[in-house]
């Protein structure tokens, strides 16, 4: 079951960070410390509405946190979740390596049991 959870989280993170605009937004938030849809859209070739949508995706993945700021929301990167994301994405990078290691472990265990 833990595998299932990991796959699911990976999917969410993949969706959140798999988009170049959202990666650029995370970079901007890291550099600036915080930002709103308006301030971020000044640095990006997309509309404020589009930025708002992207921020929603990042928010749902837990990568940013919002606080009310007048009519808008002010966003910061969630450092802990980002660190987890980095660790996870690195591990997702070797998804097949991990599967093959499990295949190896299972097959070798069966072989040993058969020989005992």
């Amino acid at each position: 079951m833990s595998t299932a959870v990991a796959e699911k989280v990976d999917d969410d993170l993949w969706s959140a960070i798999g988009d170049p605009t959202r990666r650029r937004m995370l970079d901007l938030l890291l550099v600036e410390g915080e930002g709103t849809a308006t301030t971020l859209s000044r640095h990006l070739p997309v509309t404020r509405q589009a930025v708002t949508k992207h921020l929603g995706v990042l928010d749902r993945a837990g990568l940013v946190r919002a606080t009310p700021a007048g009519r808008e929301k002010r966003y910061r990167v969630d450092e802990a979740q980002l660190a987890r994301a980095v660790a996870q994405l690195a591990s997702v990078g070797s998804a097949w390596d991990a599967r093959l290691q499990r295949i190896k472990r299972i097959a070798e265990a069966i072989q040993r049991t058969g020989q005992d």
Partner: protein
Amino acid sequence: MEFGTIEREVYIEASPETVFEVVSSPGHLRQWWPDDARYEPVPGSTGEIVFGDPGAGGAVVAFTVVDARPPRTFSFRWTHPAGEAAAEGNSLLVTFDLTPSGGGTLLKMTETGFREMGWEAAVLEQQYQEHVTGWDFYLARLAPYVATLRVRS
């Protein structure tokens, strides 16, 4: 650069017959990949693999056996749209080739179809990087940042 194929090799201290069973049978697949697997390990069999609880955010993914020649080759397509026949262009093809080696088995895995899926180039590249090398662009920018987190905590 070509983003078409992933290749991996691993040496396993077990007979090709045992390794074939592990890479092909639904019961074993559940142990190393999805939470559930429903298909017959024979060519042409269609089924599905399940991640998590489909009723609570999990995923059901189409799975079609392409080739099964014990104890040498097992291949399947996955990720095609439900109800569609698996074919080049709508799915990823995974092939396991087993070669006797020493007292064990050399298992070679290839996954192809990233290009043929017809996804937009950026997604294609990201997906490929994710599978193969990790997140080069993103990690390069984040590594120093994460290092600062570690220092602070």
